[in-house]
C-alpha cells in the first residue's frame, strides 16, 4: 500500500487497467486530474475540441478494439456536453468509463460555479454511475467501473469525483478482484433450454438466424459463422451486426429492417423458427410487431434478461454470453446424429428467389455521382482492412446496404440513438486503436458540421482519418420522409447554404477536395490516403436520391416501398 492523492490514484488505476489512451477536455474541477495526467507517461491523452467528441472518440476506440474506452471531463458544462456520448454508447452497449470532475464536497448542493447534479443526469444513460464520497472508496469504485463496463452486457460507466478528493491523500491499494454480491452476469446458457432450442432447430423447416450487435460485443463472429456453415441455416443481420458474416457469404441475406433488403425482410416474414443471436428486436427492425415473424417460433439468446420477451415473446429464452451459448448449441447439435445442412435446401432455394427478385440495386449515372457508387468504389480502393464509421442519415443507410463489410469491428455507427456527429470523433478513436488501418468516415453535409471541430484534434494529434461527405445539400433522410409522407414540404431541411468543405479542411491544416465525377473521386481518395493527413472529400451527389427499400414506420416489414417512381 502506498500513499497517493486522488489524482495519482486515478492515474495509477488506469495504468493497472492497461489504459493506453484517454480522450478528454480539462477545466476547473478537473485541474488536479489534468496535472497528474501531465506528469505521467503511461497513457496518451488526446485533447478533443468538445466533450461530446471525447466520449464518441472513446466509444470508437472501444468498438474498434474491443477494449474499454476512457474519457475525462470537467464538471458542469464539460460534463453535460458528454451526455450525448454516453447515451450513444449506452444504446449500443459500448464499454466506456467516463471520469468527470465535480465541485468540492463542501460546495455540493450549494449551486456552486459549474456545479450540476452529474450522476442525476447521467443515471438514465449509463449502465452504472458513482459519485465518489471519500478517498477510501476511490480505488474500489474505479475497479468496479471498469469491471461493470466490460462484463455482462457492456456499457458506459460514469464516475463523478469531487475536486477535493482529487487532491486528498489516502492509502492506495487497487483490488485484484471485484466482489459485488449484487452483480453477477450469467455467461453459460441453461443446458435444458439449449437442448430444447436445438430440438426446435432440428425440427424446423425454415429456420433463420437473426444476428445482432451482441455478436460483436461478445466476439462471437467465429462461432456464429461456424454454426451457420455446419447447419446451412441462412441469416439476416441488424445494422449493429454488419461484419459478423462476410458480405459474400451465400447464407447472408443482408441487413433486415426499415432499410433492409427484400430478401432479409421476406425471410423474417416467412421463417418458421427465428434464432435471435444478440439482437433486441428494435422497432427499426420489427416494424409492426404483430406481423413480425408471425409464423415463427422464437429462440432468443441474450446476455441481458430484460431484452428477452420485451418486444416479442420468446418460446426458447436463453440467457448467456453469445459466443458461449453458440458453442453450446453446436455441441448439442453435434451430439447424436449431427445436423444435415441439406435439410434446409428447399428453404434456401426460396430465399435465393427473393434475392434474385429484388436485389439491392441503384441506377448508376454518368452525369451525376450516385452515393452508392461512391461507397462501393471506396471499398474497392481501401480494401478489407479499412475501418468505416458513419454519421446518421441516408449516407449511413447506403453504407450499411452497399459497403461490403467482412469482419466484425470494421463498421462503427450509432444505431440505437442515431447520433449525428458521431462519425468523425468515432473515426479518430478507431484510428488511435488501429493506427495501421485506413479509417474512413462517411458523413452527410448536415452531420459533419455537428463535430467539425474535431478536424483540429485530428491535426494536432496526427490522426489521419478521411471524411467522405456525401453532399446532397439536404438533411437528406428527413427530406426523404418529407418527400414520402409530407407531400414534399421540405421544412427546415434545405442545406443549400454551406461552407466550402475543401477549404474548411485546409483551414485546419488538412487536405480537402470537392469532386463531381467518378474520376475526380477516385483521384481524390487516393491522394487523401497518400497524404497521411486528415481529409475531407466533399462529394457532390444526386440531391434527390432516396434510400430504398423502405418500410414505413410501423408497417409490417414485408410491406416495403421498393421504388420511388413519382417521388423524386
Amino acid at each position: 500500500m502506498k500513499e497517493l492523492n486522488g489524482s495519482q490514484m486515478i492515474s495509477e488505476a488506469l495504468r493497472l487497467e492497461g489504459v493506453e489512451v484517454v480522450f478528454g477536455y480539462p477545466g476547473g474541477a478537473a485541474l488536479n486530474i489534468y496535472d497528474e495526467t501531465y506528469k505521467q507517461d503511461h497513457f496518451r491523452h488526446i485533447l478533443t475540441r468538445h466533450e461530446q467528441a471525447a466520449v464518441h472518440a472513446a466509444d470508437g476506440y472501444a468498438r474498434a478494439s474491443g477494449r474499454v474506452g476512457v474519457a475525462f471531463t470537467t464538471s458542469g458544462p464539460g460534463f453535460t456536453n458528454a451526455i450525448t456520448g454516453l447515451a450513444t454508447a449506452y444504446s449500443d452497449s459500448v464499454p466506456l468509463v467516463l471520469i468527470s470532475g465535480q465541485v468540492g464536497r463542501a460546495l455540493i448542493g450549494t449551486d456552486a460555479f459549474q456545479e450540476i447534479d452529474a450522476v442525476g443526469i447521467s443515471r438514465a444513460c449509463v449502465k452504472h454511475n458513482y459519485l465518489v464520497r471519500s478517498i477510501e472508496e476511490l480505488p474500489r469504485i474505479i475497479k468496479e467501473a471498469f469491471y461493470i463496463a466490460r462484463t455482462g452486457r457492456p456499457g458506459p460507466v460514469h464516475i463523478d469525483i469531487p475536486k477535493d478528493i482529487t487532491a486528498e491523500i489516502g492509502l492506495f491499494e487497487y483490488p485484484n478482484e471485484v466482489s459485488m454480491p449484487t452483480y453477477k452476469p450469467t455467461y453459460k446458457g441453461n443446458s435444458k433450454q439449449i437442448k430444447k432450442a436445438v430440438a426446435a432447430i432440428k425440427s424446423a423447416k425454415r429456420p433463420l438466424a437473426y444476428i445482432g450487435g451482441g455478436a460483436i460485443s461478445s466476439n462471437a463472429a467465429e462461432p456464429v459463422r461456424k454454426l451457420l456453415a455446419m447447419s446451412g441455416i441462412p441469416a439476416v443481420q441488424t445494422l449493429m451486426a454488419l461484419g459478423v458474416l462476410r458480405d459474400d457469404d451465400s447464407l447472408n441475406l443482408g441487413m433486415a429492417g426499415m432499410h433492409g433488403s427484400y430478401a432479409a425482410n421476406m425471410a423474417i416474414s416467412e421463417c418458421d423458427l427465428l434464432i435471435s443471436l444478440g439482437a433486441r428486436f428494435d422497432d427499426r427492425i420489427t416494424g409492426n410487431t404483430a406481423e413480425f415473424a408471425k409464423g415463427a417460433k422464437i429462440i432468443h439468446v441474450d446476455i441481458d434478461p430484460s431484452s428477452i420477451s420485451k418486444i416479442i415473446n420468446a418460446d426458447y429464452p436463453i440467457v448467456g454470453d453469445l459466443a458461449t451459448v453458440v458453442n453450446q448449441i453446436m455441441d448439442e447439435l453435434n451430439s447424436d446424429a449431427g445436423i444435415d445442412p441439406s435439410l434446409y435446401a428447399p428453404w434456401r432455394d426460396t430465399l435465393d428467389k427473393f434475392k434474385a427478385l429484388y436485389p439491392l440495386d441503384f441506377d448508376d449515372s454518368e452525369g451525376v455521382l450516385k452515393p452508392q457508387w461512391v461507397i462501393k468504389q471506396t471499398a474497392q480502393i481501401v480494401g478489407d482492412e479499412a475501418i468505416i464509421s458513419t454519421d446518421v442519415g441516408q449516407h449511413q443507410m447506403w453504407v450499411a446496404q452497399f459497403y461490403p463489410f467482412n469482419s466484425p469491428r470494421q463498421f462503427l455507427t450509432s444505431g440505437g440513438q442515431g447520433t449525428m456527429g458521431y462519425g468523425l470523433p468515432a473515426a479518430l478513436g478507431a484510428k488511435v486503436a488501429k493506427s495501421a488501418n485506413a479509417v474512413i468516415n462517411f458523413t452527410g453535409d448536415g452531420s459533419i458540421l455537428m463535430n467539425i471541430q474535431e478536424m483540429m484534434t485530428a491535426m494536432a494529434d496526427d490522426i489521419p482519418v478521411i471524411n467522405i461527405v456525401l453532399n446532397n445539400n439536404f438533411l437528406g433522410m428527413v427530406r426523404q420522409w418529407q418527400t414520402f409522407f409530407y407531400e414534399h414540404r421540405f421544412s427546415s431541411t434545405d442545406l443549400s447554404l454551406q461552407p466550402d468543405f475543401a477549404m474548411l479542411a485546409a483551414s485546419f491544416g488538412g487536405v480537402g477536395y470537392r469532386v463531381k465525377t467518378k474520376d475526380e473521386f477516385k483521384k481524390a481518395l487516393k491522394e487523401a490516403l497518400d497524404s497521411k493527413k486528415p481529409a475531407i472529400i466533399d462529394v457532390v451527389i444526386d440531391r434527390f436520391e432516396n434510400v430504398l427499400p423502405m418500410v414505413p414506420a410501423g408497417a409490417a416489414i414485408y410491406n416495403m416501398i421498393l421504388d420511388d417512381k413519382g417521388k423524386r
Partner: protein
Amino acid sequence: MRRLISVIVLNEHGVLARISGLFAGRGYNIDSLTVAPIPESDFSRLSIVTNGDERVLEQIVKQLHKLIPTYKVIEDASFVEKEMALVKIPLSEDFAGLDAILKGYNGSVANSSDEFIVVMVVDDASRIDSFLKTVKKFNPIDIVRGGSVIMDM
C-alpha cells in the same frame, strides 16, 4: 393488475433515485413505495406496490434486477401486506361510534392535543381504504398513509 414487489438493494448513495428513476423513465406506475435499511446489514428493503399488465410487470421485475445494486427481487411469493394510516380528528367532533370502529380495525388513539386526537390503524391496504371511508364522518382534518410494507412468506 395490482402487484407487490419486494426488492433488496445495496444500501448505497442514490439507490432510491435509481429505482424511482427507473419507474418514472419507463412509464411504470408506483402506487406506493416504502424503504428502510435491513438491520445489521448493508442492504435496504423496498416494498413496491405497482400495477400493469403481465408484460409490463415482467419488464419491471427484469429492469429492477438489472440495476447494479439490486440483490434480490421477490415477486412471485405470497406476501403479508400491512399499511399504516394516521388520522387527525378535531376534538369538536362527536366521537360516538369511533371506539367500536377502532376496535374493528385493531386501531388505537396514537396521541392527542387540546384540539384534536390522532388515531392509527395497521391493516392491509384495502382494509385501510374502508377504514378511511368509515371515519370520514368524523371530518378528519388530516390523513397520512404509510404505503404498504410487505414480507414474503
